[in-house]
């Protein structure tokens, strides 16, 4: 029913420290997809590969149905990109920097940009080097939102933002999503931002895709179990993705909620996990089940 705005197919990229192996991933149009994973899991690499800024050892990326290798200029007209370190010319002013950026885009909307600057409380005369990290990100966002982009790609945008603006950012994104033709890909290791607002979550762990599902599906399947250590037997352990045992009890993650409910209902506390729980315990589980 819904189209894919990004199609990643068998992407492989090898570095000394780690590699992305055969990662395939589709990002649906009209939704906010959160890309989560620990630092070093491969999120930024994946995004750079998707943008054509890195060259894969194998695999291909299609955005808006076009190959990023062949039509990267046409594709990027329609992408607004925001990174946590946007690499502007430090010695120039906001106005001058905008003067460099804007002519590249056919759909640049100057009125919209001015409104965005006001909304983010930025002055055109300020030099880039005197902007805080958060203000740089806001400027980057103001630029990205001012050329009618159909896809917003954000690489760790909230690291370095105060909680007040983080909330405002999520509001801005939700506003964008009122238009069902727009899509957002949002990579972060701060999962609390996505707990509420994301539609789909793709979880990358050590260069591999653990899942890419709607939040509804994820929270139907995954559950946090807290209970006494006596409950832990071989059958129960098999259902756990990761577990944290202490002297006073255990805390575990399962991706088979119904099976666990059948076994432990009434004996252990079963509840909805946060994305952070899922990330943490999946990593823990993978570490022990080597």
């Amino acid at each position: 029913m819904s189209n894919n705005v990004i199609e990643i197919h068998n992407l492989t990229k090898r570095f000394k420290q780690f590699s992305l192996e055969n990662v395939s991933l589709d990002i649906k149009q009209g939704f906010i997809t959160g890309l989560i994973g620990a630092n070093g899991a491969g999120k930024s690499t994946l995004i750079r590969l998707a943008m054509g800024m890195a060259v894969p050892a194998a695999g291909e990326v299609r955005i808006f149905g076009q190959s990023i290798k062949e039509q990267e200029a046409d594709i990027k007209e329609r992408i607004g990109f925001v990174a946590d370190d946007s690499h502007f010319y430090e010695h120039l002013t906001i106005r001058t920097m905008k003067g460099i950026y804007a002519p590249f885009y056919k759909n640049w909307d100057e009125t919209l940009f001015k409104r965005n600057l006001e909304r983010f409380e930025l002055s055109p005369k300020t030099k880039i080097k005197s902007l805080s990290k958060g203000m740089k990100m806001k400027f980057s966002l103001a630029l990205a939102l001012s050329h009618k982009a159909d896809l917003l790609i954000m690489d760790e945008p909230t690291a370095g933002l105060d909680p007040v603006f983080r909330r405002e950012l999520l509001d801005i994104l939700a506003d964008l999503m009122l238009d069902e033709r727009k899509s957002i890909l949002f990579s972060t290791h701060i999962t609390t931002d996505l707990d509420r607002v994301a539609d789909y979550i793709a979880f990358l762990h050590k260069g591999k895709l653990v899942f890419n599902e709607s939040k509804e599906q994820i929270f139907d399947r995954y559950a946090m179990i807290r209970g006494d250590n006596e409950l832990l037997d071989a059958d129960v352990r098999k259902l756990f993705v990761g577990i944290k045992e202490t002297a006073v009890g255990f805390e575990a993650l399962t991706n088979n909620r119904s099976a666990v409910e059948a076994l432990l209902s009434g004996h252990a506390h079963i509840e909805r996990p946060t994305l952070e729980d899922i990330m943490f315990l999946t990593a823990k589980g993978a570490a022990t089940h080597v």
Partner: protein
Amino acid sequence: MYNLIRKDFIAMRWYLLFVLGYAVFFGTFSGFPVFSPIMIITLPAVMMTLFAANIELRNKTMMFVGTLPVRRKQIVLAKYISIFLYLAVGLILLVIVHLVNEYIIHQSFPITVLSLIVSAGIAMTYSALYFPIQFLLGVKSSNIVSFISIFLMIFLISLIGNVADKATEFNWPILPIMIGLPVAAIILMYLSYRLSLSIFRRKDMEG
């Protein structure tokens, strides 16, 4: 691609003032050993190339350019075409220096077509050698590359300076040089462009 070239000029605009000052100073100071158009055309072109590279290195601009709607081909081509614009700037500076010499200082500043062609030729050859190395070694070795390239420059200038001396000494025919040199330089730049492009296409963009 025009926008790519334009961005470098905008980022460099204060440096251009420096280049102007430099040109006027060395262009009017006749005591300086190499008192010739080479100083006003070639060296500024080289300086501006290195300035642009240095600004890009400091700001990690490549990571910004990579998000813009441009193809890798345009990124590489813009660098090569910029050389011609730098040479045009040098030409303007030369005119200014000539006027300053003629009407303010009242000393002669000889300009021959041959010297213009040689100056441009050196700058073009330099760029043809510099760019592939810059693309190959990438951002991390950029400082070393800039350093080496200054020596490259001095070598080229003395080499061609020697050839020019020999030419006047032995009365070599000028016309073949005046046509041959630019043609050779352009062919060299084109080959260099192809090489740079194939190197760049295979690399990750780095800040």
